[in-house]
């Protein structure tokens, strides 16, 4: 992790592209991305990268630009300047579907689950397996069950309606579904929001298991600093549209992160 140490804290002071030594190894690399909405500068010269098998925590207050950054990475917005590289190749993301086809999957806060449908149909939503015009219910149940077992999710039955499940189980289904579509980059938007400590713990363990697979780059957007420290390899702090902090979690602490954010309020 030596490359992170060398350019740890002074990110915002040295804007512009920052070719690291492991250029080709990054699953996702964002270089010098800026975005304005009319007079408002939402993002300024953002550099961000994440490798396969790495969990990057993206922290930042409301209005710091987190959602704009996510929407650019997922192909919803187009940046005004800068470039995006997926698997080392520069891409111009045309749409959410385009980003998805390149392996960028997002689990939004609302999870995109349909309560009335059973777990396995949610798992295969809009990607149903069919023979001719007919659904392969048995095969979908079997595969969903295997996939959910693989990520270690306890669900009583893949035939159960999703509405009968807890918040943690629902989150886990949404994550497993995103992973199942062979995502290279997985964005988790506040997966721990509105979740109890125990359920949050289950999700963190799930993220940890995904990290251990080694092929998936995960960006975890979060508010809760201590949970981020538990599961992330590295932390980026987004403040006023700029990344002001980039360091491995091993070399920082909740106290330091809080201090940075408090400093922001003191100057504001």
């Amino acid at each position, binding site marked *: 992790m030596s490359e992170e140490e060398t350019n740890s804290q002074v990110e915002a002071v040295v804007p512009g592209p920052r070719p690291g030594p492991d250029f080709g190894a990054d699953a996702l690399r964002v270089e010098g991305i800026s975005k304005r909405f009319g007079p408002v500068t939402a993002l300024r010269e953002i550099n961000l990268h994440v490798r396969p098998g790495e969990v990057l925590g993206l922290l930042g207050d409301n209005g710091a630009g987190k959602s704009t950054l996510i929407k650019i990475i997922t192909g919803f917005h187009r940046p005004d300047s800068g470039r995006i590289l997926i698997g080392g190749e520069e891409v111009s993301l045309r749409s959410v579907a385009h980003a998805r086809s390149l392996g960028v999957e997002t689990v939004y806060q609302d999870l995109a689950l*349909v309560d009335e449908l059973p777990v396995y149909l949610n798992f295969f939503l809009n990607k149903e397996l069919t023979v001719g015009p*007919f659904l392969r219910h048995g095969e979908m149940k079997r595969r969903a069950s295997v996939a959910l077992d693989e990520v270690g999710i*306890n669900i009583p039955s893949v035939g159960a309606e999703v509405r*009968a499940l807890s918040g943690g189980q629902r989150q886990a289904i949404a994550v497993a579904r995103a992973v199942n579509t062979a995502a290279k980059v997985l964005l988790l938007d506040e997966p721990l929001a509105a979740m109890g400590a125990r359920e949050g713990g289950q999700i963190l363990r799930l993220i940890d298991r995904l990290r251990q697979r080694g092929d998936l780059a995960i960006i975890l957007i979060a508010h809760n600093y201590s949970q981020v420290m538990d599961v992330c390899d590295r932390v980026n702090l987004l403040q006023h549209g700029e990344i002001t902090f980039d360091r491995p979690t091993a070399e920082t602490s909740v106290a330091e992160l809080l201090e940075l954010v408090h400093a922001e309020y003191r100057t504001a």
Partner: protein
Amino acid sequence: MAQQTPQLTRREPETTAARRGIGRALLRRRELSILLVTIAAFAYFSAGSHGADFNTTNNYHIIMQYFGPWAMIAAGEALLLICGEIDLSAGFTYTFVPFVLMSFYNQGLDVPLSLVLAILVSMGIGLVNGLIRTVFNLSSFITTLGMGFFLEGMTYIQSNAEPVNPPITGTLGNVLGGWRWSELVWALLIVALMQVALSYTKYGVYAQAAGGNPLSAAESGIKVNRVKIATFVLTSLFAGLAGIVDQVRVGSFDPTSGGSPMMFMAVSAAVIGGTALLGGSGTVVGALFGAVLLAIIQNGFTLTGVNAYAFDVVIGVAVVAAMLLNVYISSLRRKYLR
């Protein structure tokens, strides 16, 4: 992983009723409860004082005449309700489409061509409903209410408010309602088709997703509007077909037939059959059972000499009771079927 999901351990002790096979089956297959009620109503009237009149082929045919068009339209309405929509104009489509056929026929086209064009017009009505609903984001309640009035007026203009004899005869006439039981075949065919579409095709999943959580459906890339428009088209198609078949059977295209009573019976049948008014879930077979139940009650009341007005009272109670039962069964399902 060793951790256990907490909500499983919190699970409440199951009552013996829900544990038993019948209890579970009733919860799992929501058609089953309405089927039992329908069988009970049938048994009541066959065993009652007028059982001899009730249990005749002729009387079964009368019952079929009631539920045939209700079931055909209800098959579409059930899917629309599952999508989170409703078509209040279906009963007027039923009335209007035979006169569309007549107007093509009167212009010199032959019967088969007039029939095909009339069917296309009925699908067009659904297309307009669906487009106004989705493009202008107007509620289907308002959209189809307006369409209903529009079609009612158009029917009177087309027909001069006078009934006419259907020109459809011969084999085609027999297929389209002329043969004694052809209406039953049409109803069963449409119900079976739509139930298979609901349970075994992507369309069915998308319809449930569109009604259950439109936002999630859209985020998953499902074309929610397209699914809804297709369902409006199907409902109008079935309503137009029901209008032709039912009125060929009667032997008269009647501008005063159908209308809102027809639509309300179809929607009631769907709701009594276990389809949620707010979308997301439902069954087409249940809608058929609902239609049969309503027909048996209406016929049974007539035979036993119960005041005809009482029928509406019973329907009113049945619809509300069915909705309450739906809510109750849904909560039971959530509790016991995990």
